[in-house]
């Protein structure tokens, strides 16, 4: 009789001890962070590490040979004219798309932070492109830009800007294809930027603008001298998010143009995918991907600096 009783006591002690273990912050904290850490290491950290290793090797998908070749892969990559186009495109698309976004997002931010009937409906409508997966929205745009079924062509035809018989091949002409990709990138990163800027605008104390009004400033002076400088830090955040989303994206190009016509709309993301996965040259695909790294690292540093600064009004 005495033995089971003793064992039971021990069991109770154990549960009590475990219970108290969870009350301790140094145990509970890491425990709750663990899922995120595992996710980040397994799905972001490790692949990144592999990319670095592959880029210095001659790995392909077709064989299991693996030799370190130093910078040879990089030399081959840089010499490739398609890569040069892709690198230039990535930078140009990002800069143009984000420049468009920042102007439109500021206007939208003002619209969203204003008080009017049906505000919620408009907010939902504006957020919609952001909630839609890239692949899905790119498919929708593919139809919109189709040379036969494009509603743009139909509208242009109705107002007699183009001849109904010779529709515009939006994705078939270099410059139009580039414009289409940039438009898609701007369209899908606009909502988040607009919402970020709306939050920024609402965080500016209204009496600052009222004070400026009493001080004799008109709309434009208030906008450029008070609102914009106070909005600048948050605008920076919006731009950084936009850069990350546009610079690394491959889905838009992959679905809309496949990098074409020719390689006119090729970007680092898509070219890395075509070379590394479809072309089978893992090493070169990885090396192409590496070229995104300095920009993303820079963005990360700026973001972290921004996050650690407490610059309250």
């Amino acid at each position, binding site marked *: 009789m005495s033995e089971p009783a003793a064992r039971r006591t021990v069991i109770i002690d154990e549960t009590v001890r475990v219970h108290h273990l969870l009350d301790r912050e140094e145990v509970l904290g890491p425990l709750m962070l663990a899922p995120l850490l595992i996710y980040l290491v397994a799905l972001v950290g490790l692949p990144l590490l592999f990319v670095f290793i592959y880029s210095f090797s001659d790995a392909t998908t077709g064989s299991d040979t693996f030799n370190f070749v130093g910078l040879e892969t990089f030399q081959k990559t840089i010499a490739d004219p398609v890569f040069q186009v892709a690198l230039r495109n990535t930078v140009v698309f990002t800069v143009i798309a984000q420049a468009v976004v920042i102007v439109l997002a500021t206007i939208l931010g003002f619209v969203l932070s204003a008080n009017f009937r049906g505000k919620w409906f408009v907010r939902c409508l504006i957020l919609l492109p952001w909630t839609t997966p890239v692949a899905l929205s790119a498919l929708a745009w593919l139809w919109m830009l189709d040379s036969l079924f494009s509603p743009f062509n139909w509208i242009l035809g109705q107002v007699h800007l183009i001849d109904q018989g010779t529709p515009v091949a939006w994705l078939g002409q270099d410059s139009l294809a580039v414009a289409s990709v940039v438009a898609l990138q701007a369209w899908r990163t606009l909502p988040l930027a607009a919402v970020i800027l709306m939050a920024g605008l609402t965080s500016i104390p209204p009496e600052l603008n009222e004070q400026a*009004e009493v001080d004799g400033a008109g709309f434009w002076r208030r906008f450029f001298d008070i609102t914009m400088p106070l909005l600048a830090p948050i605008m920076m955040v919006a731009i950084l998010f936009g850069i990350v989303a546009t610079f690394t994206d491959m889905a838009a190009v992959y679905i809309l143009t496949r990098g074409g016509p020719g390689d006119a709309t090729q970007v680092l993301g898509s070219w890395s995918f075509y070379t590394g996965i479809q072309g089978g040259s893992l090493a070169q695909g990885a090396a192409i991907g590496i070229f995104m790294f300095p920009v993303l690292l820079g963005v990360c540093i700026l973001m972290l600096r921004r996050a650690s600064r407490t610059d309250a009004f």
Partner: protein
Amino acid sequence: MAEVEVRDIRKSFGGGSAAVDGISLTCGNGEYLVLLGPSGCGKTTLLRMIAGLEHPTGGDILIGGRSVRGLPPRARKIAMVFQSYALYPHKKVEQNISFPLEAQGMSREERIEKVKWASGLLGIGHLLQRKPRQLSGGERQRVALARALVREPQVFLLDEPLSNLDAKLRASARLELKQFQQRVGISTIYVTHDQVEAMGLGDRIAVLNQGRLQQVGTPEEIYHRPANTFVATFVGSPPMNLVSRDGKLVGFRPENIELEKTAGSRDDAAVFHSRVLRIENLGADRYVYLRVQDDRGDTNIIAKLPIDHPLHVAAEDDADVIVRKRHLRMFDRDSGEETAA
């Protein structure tokens, strides 16, 4: 410098009752007018309408004899200091002060001259290169005043400019504000819920409640001859005592009370029988809490007696409250308005 006049001004915000419900008021040339009232009484809304930041739903506003209805704030030649001071956080003190001048399109040399003059007047010349967040509360207030002063407005509008300062600083800031206004002599409308500020600063005080004007007068008039029971109990600390007798409300200030064990009947004074509830010693004064029998049952009142006066009663004692007739104010029991004795 200019006279400010509001005529039967009204403001209601979507549906509900009016925030400002028909107020007529004049602030004379160079006068220091204080708008006093509890929060939500409409005083800030009234000030914002004068500034042009709110549009009145009715009535008219005149500055310097000319209607400013429909004019934007920048066309009204007013300066305003907000409760938060609303300094531009990204600009140095110097740029903050010169902002109204830039908006006017004044030349750089003139601006520098003006900023020097205004900052000298307020003793902040050494702070010009700092950012607002590097300033103390009192320094911020002075910067805000300098910015208001620099363009030589016709009217100063101040919205609770002292409420963000700690109690110690507030007394000295009050003195500075008053001296400053006397020196520049610009008509000033000052909003506050603090009766001490109102009494200390105002040439005249306008007491507001529920969007309506209760009384306008000098601090003495407001204190000694309140127009109704609201003013009587809002101004003064502790407030005026109100006791119901002969169908009227009899009001008297706590410091006008004499306490005796038995007073007998007096020709020159009113006598109320009471019971002492509690005596508080506050250093210079004593507060004596008393319960008085009146027409409507029991009423609690407070007597404020100088500490060096001998007190012949203790807690739980019966005592007679004596108030000289000239200190008595009569109010209508239903309307609360002052009536003749």
